[in-house]
Protein backbone atom coordinates (compact mmCIF):
# COMPACT_ATOMS: atom_id res chain seq x y z
CA UNK A 1 0.00 0.00 0.00
CA UNK A 2 1.29 3.45 -0.86
CA UNK A 3 2.39 5.71 1.92
CA UNK A 4 -0.22 8.12 3.28
CA UNK A 5 0.15 11.65 2.04
CA UNK A 6 -1.35 14.82 3.50
CA UNK A 7 -2.47 18.09 2.02
CA UNK A 8 -3.77 21.32 3.58
CA UNK A 9 -5.81 23.97 1.75
CA UNK A 10 -3.86 26.46 -0.34
CA UNK A 11 -3.01 29.67 1.47
CA UNK A 12 -5.97 31.59 0.07
CA UNK A 13 -8.28 28.81 1.28
CA UNK A 14 -7.78 29.85 4.90
CA UNK A 15 -8.21 33.08 6.84
CA UNK A 16 -5.93 33.18 9.86
CA UNK A 17 -6.30 35.65 12.73
CA UNK A 18 -4.04 35.62 15.78
CA UNK A 19 -6.07 36.45 18.90
CA UNK A 20 -3.66 36.62 21.80
CA UNK A 21 -2.52 33.08 22.50
CA UNK A 22 -5.15 31.46 20.26
CA UNK A 23 -5.23 31.41 16.51
CA UNK A 24 -8.57 31.52 14.73
CA UNK A 25 -8.61 29.79 11.35
CA UNK A 26 -11.54 30.27 9.01
CA UNK A 27 -11.68 27.49 6.44
CA UNK A 28 -13.29 28.85 3.30
CA UNK A 29 -14.31 25.51 1.80
CA UNK A 30 -16.22 24.36 4.86
CA UNK A 31 -17.25 27.65 6.44
CA UNK A 32 -15.99 26.29 9.75
CA UNK A 33 -13.95 28.33 12.22
CA UNK A 34 -11.26 26.37 14.05
CA UNK A 35 -9.33 27.61 17.06
CA UNK A 36 -5.88 26.17 17.01
CA UNK A 37 -2.58 26.31 18.86
CA UNK A 38 0.92 25.28 17.88
CA UNK A 39 1.91 23.24 15.95
CA UNK A 40 -1.19 23.55 13.76
CA UNK A 41 -0.37 26.80 11.92
CA UNK A 42 3.15 25.54 11.16
CA UNK A 43 1.81 22.24 9.83
CA UNK A 44 -0.84 23.93 7.70
CA UNK A 45 1.79 26.23 6.25
CA UNK A 46 4.17 23.36 5.51
CA UNK A 47 1.64 21.48 3.39
CA UNK A 48 -0.43 24.37 2.02
CA UNK A 49 -1.78 23.23 -1.33
CA UNK A 50 0.73 20.40 -1.72
CA UNK A 51 0.83 16.73 -0.87
CA UNK A 52 3.45 15.82 1.73
CA UNK A 53 4.35 12.44 3.12
CA UNK A 54 4.75 11.86 6.84
CA UNK A 55 8.41 11.26 6.13
CA UNK A 56 8.95 14.59 4.43
CA UNK A 57 7.06 16.49 7.15
CA UNK A 58 9.05 14.81 9.90
CA UNK A 59 12.22 15.63 8.07
CA UNK A 60 11.27 19.25 7.43
CA UNK A 61 10.75 19.80 11.14
CA UNK A 62 13.75 17.73 12.16
CA UNK A 63 11.69 15.31 14.25
CA UNK A 64 13.31 12.39 16.00
CA UNK A 65 11.93 8.93 15.35
CA UNK A 66 10.21 8.89 18.74
CA UNK A 67 8.21 11.99 17.86
CA UNK A 68 6.44 10.52 14.85
CA UNK A 69 3.57 9.33 17.02
CA UNK A 70 2.81 12.84 18.22
CA UNK A 71 2.96 14.16 14.66
CA UNK A 72 0.57 11.46 13.45
CA UNK A 73 -1.78 12.32 16.28
CA UNK A 74 -1.83 15.98 15.21
CA UNK A 75 -2.32 15.06 11.58
CA UNK A 76 -5.19 12.71 12.42
CA UNK A 77 -6.82 15.51 14.34
CA UNK A 78 -6.49 17.84 11.36
CA UNK A 79 -7.88 15.19 9.02
CA UNK A 80 -10.88 14.66 11.32
CA UNK A 81 -11.49 18.42 11.38
CA UNK A 82 -11.36 18.48 7.58
CA UNK A 83 -8.46 20.93 7.57
CA UNK A 84 -6.14 18.35 6.08
CA UNK A 85 -6.89 15.73 3.47
CA UNK A 86 -5.20 12.34 3.65
CA UNK A 87 -4.74 10.02 0.70
Amino acid at each position, binding site marked *: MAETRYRAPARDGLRIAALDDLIAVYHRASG*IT*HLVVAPVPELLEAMAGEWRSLESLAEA*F*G*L*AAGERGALIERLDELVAAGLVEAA
Partner: protein
Amino acid sequence: MSDETGHSDAGATRRRALMLGAAGAAAVVSIRPALAQTAGSVMTCEIPVPDPSRAGGYIDANGNVVPAGTKNAFAPPLRPLKGEDVRRAMAGGGNLPGVDYERSRAYLKYVGRLQRGTTGFTCFASLQMLRK
Protein backbone atom coordinates in the same frame (compact mmCIF):
# COMPACT_ATOMS: atom_id res chain seq x y z
CA MET B 1 9.00 17.07 25.73
CA SER B 2 11.45 16.89 28.57
CA ASP B 3 14.92 18.30 28.37
CA GLU B 4 16.75 16.16 25.88
CA THR B 5 20.41 15.90 25.13
CA GLY B 6 22.30 14.21 22.36
CA HIS B 7 20.65 16.03 19.43
CA SER B 8 22.31 18.64 17.32
CA ASP B 9 21.55 22.25 18.23
CA ALA B 10 19.87 22.90 14.93
CA GLY B 11 17.55 19.95 15.43
CA ALA B 12 16.63 21.09 18.92
CA THR B 13 15.83 24.58 17.68
CA ARG B 14 13.61 23.34 14.93
CA ARG B 15 11.88 20.98 17.27
CA ARG B 16 11.01 23.85 19.57
CA ALA B 17 9.51 25.61 16.55
CA LEU B 18 7.15 22.67 16.16
CA MET B 19 5.57 22.15 19.55
CA LEU B 20 3.79 18.91 19.02
CA GLY B 21 1.76 19.21 22.18
CA ALA B 22 0.91 16.61 24.76
CA ALA B 23 -0.50 13.28 23.69
CA GLY B 24 -4.29 13.31 23.94
CA ALA B 25 -4.55 17.11 24.15
CA ALA B 26 -6.52 18.69 21.34
CA ALA B 27 -4.81 21.30 19.20
CA VAL B 28 -7.95 22.04 17.17
CA VAL B 29 -11.33 23.12 18.49
CA SER B 30 -14.02 23.71 15.90
CA ILE B 31 -16.76 26.25 16.51
CA ARG B 32 -20.21 24.75 16.28
CA PRO B 33 -23.50 26.55 15.88
CA ALA B 34 -24.47 27.92 19.26
CA LEU B 35 -28.14 28.09 18.79
CA ALA B 36 -28.79 26.24 21.95
CA GLN B 37 -27.66 28.85 24.43
CA THR B 38 -29.85 31.54 23.07
CA ALA B 39 -32.65 29.11 22.45
CA GLY B 40 -32.63 28.61 26.21
CA SER B 41 -33.11 32.30 26.66
CA VAL B 42 -35.62 32.97 23.93
CA MET B 43 -37.95 30.11 24.60
CA THR B 44 -38.98 27.55 27.12
CA CYS B 45 -38.79 23.99 26.06
CA GLU B 46 -39.78 20.50 27.03
CA ILE B 47 -38.46 16.98 26.67
CA PRO B 48 -40.80 14.05 26.09
CA VAL B 49 -39.58 10.90 27.83
CA PRO B 50 -39.10 8.80 25.84
CA ASP B 51 -39.24 10.56 22.47
CA PRO B 52 -42.39 9.95 20.37
CA SER B 53 -40.73 7.35 18.13
CA ARG B 54 -40.28 5.17 21.21
CA ALA B 55 -43.37 6.32 23.06
CA GLY B 56 -44.67 3.94 25.67
CA GLY B 57 -41.29 2.42 26.45
CA TYR B 58 -40.10 2.25 30.06
CA ILE B 59 -36.88 3.84 31.29
CA ASP B 60 -34.37 1.68 33.12
CA ALA B 61 -31.99 2.89 35.83
CA ASN B 62 -29.32 3.66 33.22
CA GLY B 63 -31.65 5.81 31.17
CA ASN B 64 -32.19 3.24 28.43
CA VAL B 65 -35.60 2.83 26.82
CA VAL B 66 -36.80 -0.72 27.41
CA PRO B 67 -40.06 -2.48 26.56
CA ALA B 68 -43.06 -1.48 28.64
CA GLY B 69 -43.42 -3.59 31.75
CA THR B 70 -39.72 -4.45 32.07
CA LYS B 71 -38.91 -5.36 35.66
CA ASN B 72 -37.09 -2.68 37.68
CA ALA B 73 -37.66 -0.12 34.94
CA PHE B 74 -39.85 2.93 35.37
CA ALA B 75 -43.00 3.84 33.49
CA PRO B 76 -42.48 7.05 31.53
CA PRO B 77 -43.77 10.35 32.93
CA LEU B 78 -47.25 11.26 31.75
CA ARG B 79 -46.22 14.69 30.50
CA PRO B 80 -43.03 15.89 28.86
CA LEU B 81 -40.42 17.10 31.35
CA LYS B 82 -40.10 20.87 31.56
CA GLY B 83 -36.70 22.17 30.53
CA GLU B 84 -36.39 24.32 33.64
CA ASP B 85 -37.15 21.40 35.95
CA VAL B 86 -34.53 19.28 34.24
CA ARG B 87 -31.98 22.05 34.50
CA ARG B 88 -32.64 22.55 38.22
CA ALA B 89 -32.45 18.84 38.97
CA MET B 90 -29.27 18.40 36.96
CA ALA B 91 -27.58 21.44 38.48
CA GLY B 92 -28.63 20.83 42.08
CA GLY B 93 -28.78 17.05 42.08
CA GLY B 94 -32.36 17.21 43.33
CA ASN B 95 -35.44 15.39 42.13
CA LEU B 96 -37.82 16.30 39.37
CA PRO B 97 -41.04 17.79 40.79
CA GLY B 98 -43.29 15.07 42.10
CA VAL B 99 -40.89 12.29 41.16
CA ASP B 100 -38.88 10.20 43.61
CA TYR B 101 -35.10 9.99 43.64
CA GLU B 102 -34.47 6.84 41.63
CA ARG B 103 -37.05 7.60 39.03
CA SER B 104 -35.64 11.12 38.67
CA ARG B 105 -32.15 9.71 38.16
CA ALA B 106 -33.40 7.33 35.47
CA TYR B 107 -35.26 10.09 33.60
CA LEU B 108 -32.29 12.45 33.85
CA LYS B 109 -29.98 9.75 32.55
CA TYR B 110 -32.32 9.27 29.63
CA VAL B 111 -32.17 13.02 28.95
CA GLY B 112 -28.40 13.00 29.24
CA ARG B 113 -28.18 10.37 26.51
CA LEU B 114 -30.33 12.21 23.99
CA GLN B 115 -28.74 12.53 20.60
CA ARG B 116 -29.23 15.16 18.02
CA GLY B 117 -32.14 14.45 15.77
CA THR B 118 -34.14 13.03 18.67
CA THR B 119 -37.07 15.00 20.00
CA GLY B 120 -35.97 16.89 23.09
CA PHE B 121 -32.35 17.17 22.09
CA THR B 122 -32.43 20.88 21.28
CA CYS B 123 -33.98 21.50 24.67
CA PHE B 124 -31.41 19.39 26.46
CA ALA B 125 -28.57 21.08 24.57
CA SER B 126 -29.81 24.49 25.65
CA LEU B 127 -29.81 23.33 29.28
CA GLN B 128 -26.28 22.01 28.94
CA MET B 129 -25.05 25.39 27.81
CA LEU B 130 -26.74 27.17 30.68
CA ARG B 131 -25.31 24.85 33.27
CA LYS B 132 -21.76 26.01 32.71
